């Protein structure tokens, strides 16, 4: 029964995209589709944490940014000059950091029943920050002074960008390990606040450590897993292909240029879609395995699960890491699709709470639900501005073109998407709290 529902839901979604393609343009429709798929993967990540394990993670923004950072580190060409002037300093401070972490872990081990153990570690970390600045300060300065308009950072490894998706996932999972170690013992509302604030710390590090990520100066011109438009327009096979499709004879130059853009986007769509299918397959397998049943048991009744001998903290930590890894993966995909990394664009409303709306609206605890949520919410998010514009124009038809209220409303059209999200979330929470596609209850 449920499956039929989800099928119709996705068919309706497809029709909506086709309508956008006809009314606006096919380029817009495919862009929306691509971002829908990325959003669906993000919400799958959150769904794994929230829907399957009941962990509130309001730090989605931070993990997405880590994924984005991974694309820069993996795919950009290395800046050799920066490495020669400042590489050693950075390596020394990295060694220092590793040493500090090992030392803290060792203290944790040696004095594990000492009362002021945490206090010692805390003081150690406080004191190490000025030392770290001392070690890395001069080399950071010299790295940032090398060609600051285009480089001024260490660059990356120069590998294909697809690798960065996996690196992003691994990085996210390791950061999630640290965060989980600190926060997972907290009550649910504390966990929400703590993860939100920690993601703020992550963003401020990425924003201000220019030697690593170019910070607010952004990284542009990232590699692509798909062909470039300019190359396509000049290659014979592509022109032949368009001529073959175009029934009315030889295609004009304009048509070739516009269709090259669509072709590139379609390449992305195929890659993203395959990724989504693989993740969905894995996730479905995981949910229906004994492990998935155990996670649901922990979510529904922690004490009962504990009495069955399950190590709750360990399992929650592992699922927190898996969910964050998927979010980091999606973050890397997003930056790959955009082709640029802009740390200052990461804001909690767009990158944390919007994803949460997707999960809650789609149906937490159901993979198909969270994918549908990603599609629907992203579609509304993008299309609410044009729709709001139409509605405003309809209702203010009797007003003069230069009426200040009308002009003001038209100017504030982009913010109607927040209104739609708020109303949508409140309505779903009130009348269908289990979401559009509810969790399948495995009754025997």
């Amino acid at each position, binding site marked *: 029964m449920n499956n039929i529902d989800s099928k119709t839901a996705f068919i309706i979604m497809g029709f909506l995209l086709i309508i956008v393609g006809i009314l606006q343009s096919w380029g817009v429709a495919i862009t929306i589709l691509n971002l829908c798929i990325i959003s669906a993967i993000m919400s799958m990540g959150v769904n794994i944490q929230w829907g399957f394990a009941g962990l509130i993670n309001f730090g989605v923004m931070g993990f997405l940014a880590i994924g984005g950072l991974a694309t820069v580190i993996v795919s950009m060409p290395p800046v050799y000059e920066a490495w020669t002037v400042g590489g050693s300093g950075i390596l020394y401070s990295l060694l220092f950091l590793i040493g500090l972490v090992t030392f803290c872990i060792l203290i944790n081990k040696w004095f594990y029943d000492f009362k002021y153990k945490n206090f010692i570690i805390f003081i150690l970390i406080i004191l190490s920050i000025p030392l770290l600045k001392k070690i890395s300060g001069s080399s950071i300065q010299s790295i940032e002074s090398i060609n600051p308009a285009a480089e001024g950072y260490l660059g990356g490894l120069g590998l294909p960008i697809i690798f960065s998706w996996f690196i992003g996932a691994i990085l996210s999972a390791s950061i999630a390990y640290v965060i989980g170690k600190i926060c997972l013992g907290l009550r*649910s509302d504390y966990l*929400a606040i703590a993860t939100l604030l920690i993601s703020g710390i992550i963003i401020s590090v990425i924003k201000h450590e220019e030697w690593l990520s170019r910070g607010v100066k952004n990284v542009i011109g990232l590699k692509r897993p798909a062909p470039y438009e300019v190359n396509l327009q000049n290659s014979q096979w592509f022109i032949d292909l368009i001529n073959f499709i175009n029934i009315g004879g030889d295609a004009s130059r304009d048509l070739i240029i516009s269709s090259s853009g669509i072709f590139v986007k379609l390449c992305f769509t195929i890659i993203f879609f395959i990724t989504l299918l693989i993740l969905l397959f894995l996730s479905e397998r995981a949910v229906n395995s004994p492990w998935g049943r155990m996670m649901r048991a922990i979510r529904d009744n922690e004490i009962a699960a504990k009495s069955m001998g399950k190590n709750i903290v360990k399992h929650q930590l592992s699922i927190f890491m898996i969910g964050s890894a998927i979010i980091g993966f999606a973050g890397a995909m997003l930056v790959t699709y955009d082709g640029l990394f802009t740390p200052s664009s990461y804001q909690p409303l767009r990158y944390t709470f919007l994803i949460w709306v997707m999960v809650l609206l789609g149906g937490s605890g159901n993979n198909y639900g969270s994918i549908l949520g990603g599609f629907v919410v992203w579609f509304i998010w993008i299309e609410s501005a044009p729709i709001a514009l139409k509605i405003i124009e309809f209702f203010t038809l009797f007003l003069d073109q230069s009426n200040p209220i009308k002009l003001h409303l038209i100017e504030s059209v982009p913010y109607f998407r927040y209104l739609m*999200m708020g109303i949508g979330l*409140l309505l779903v929470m009130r009348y269908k709290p289990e979401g559009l596609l509810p969790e399948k209850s495995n009754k025997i």
Partner: protein
Amino acid sequence: MEFANAFILLCNFVIVPSITYGSQLALGAIGVTLIYGVLRFANFAYGDLMAFGTMVVILITWWLQSMGISFGILPTALLAIPFGIVVTIAISLFFDQYVFKYYRDKKSSSVTFIVVSLGIMFLLNAIVRIIIGPNDINFMDGERFIINAVEFKNSTQFEEGFSLKTTQVITLITTAITCYILFYFLNKTKTGKSMRAYSNNEDLALLSGINPNKIILITWIIVSILATIAGTLYGLDKSFKPFTYFNNLLPIFAATIVGGIGNPIGAFYGGFVIAFSEIALTFAYKKFLIYLTIIDPNTTNLIQYISTDYKFAISFAILVVVLIFKPQGIFKGKLI
């Protein structure tokens, strides 16, 4: 003399700004804490409630200014605050009646309340941006400075200038009055006491005949008053921008938890703890130490613990530390 210069420098850049910022955070944090104590959830819409209240104050300020009414050397916005409070109370009660009440009657989990408050956050965000736009608005008028740095330097023989903005003094006085009234209300009046009782133990409070609807109504009224005042003071001191108000929610949460969630006095001190550490840890002490002749004047080191870019990150880090060592906060949480 040198010592006095050093002290003035510190006052000017650390002590006065952090007391001002701390008062604004404290007012906000008390609001969050009261909602937590009585309604038992962390209200993520609070930053936007502050923005909403401030927006109403700004609109009325503009209206007053267009009527030619001003408040002398004080900012006109102070006259508009009561109107702003009334409108904010109205919208809070509206949301309580039509959104939160349903979940309260159903006895939903605190997570549901958080999610619902996210919905209201989106709504308020949209309302504020649609009505007044997303841009920076400066609505401060009247006298800007009580003590001007240049005049101070000329009239005294200190090398360091000391400046005192009108908004800083207004913030201090308003916070003092508001907190005095609030704590008097909570500790001395019958309604305030019943509020504390309800927060402390809902069942016993209900048993002794306290009307929960009245308590919740009063809580929303107090919270709206605090949100409007804190928002307006922050806007006067810096400037009004909806996005900044949303972001201010994060240090406010930090202050609330540092002070012990649910505990207004803790939240009050928590605000100052956060503000002082944010400003004191990002201040460059080079000039200060040169005045005290502790370090060599030609040094290039700024003697700054961490760069100002990490101002927000400090409050988050403090929160993480508090969560690890004392999850219930510095002052024991969960009692009004």
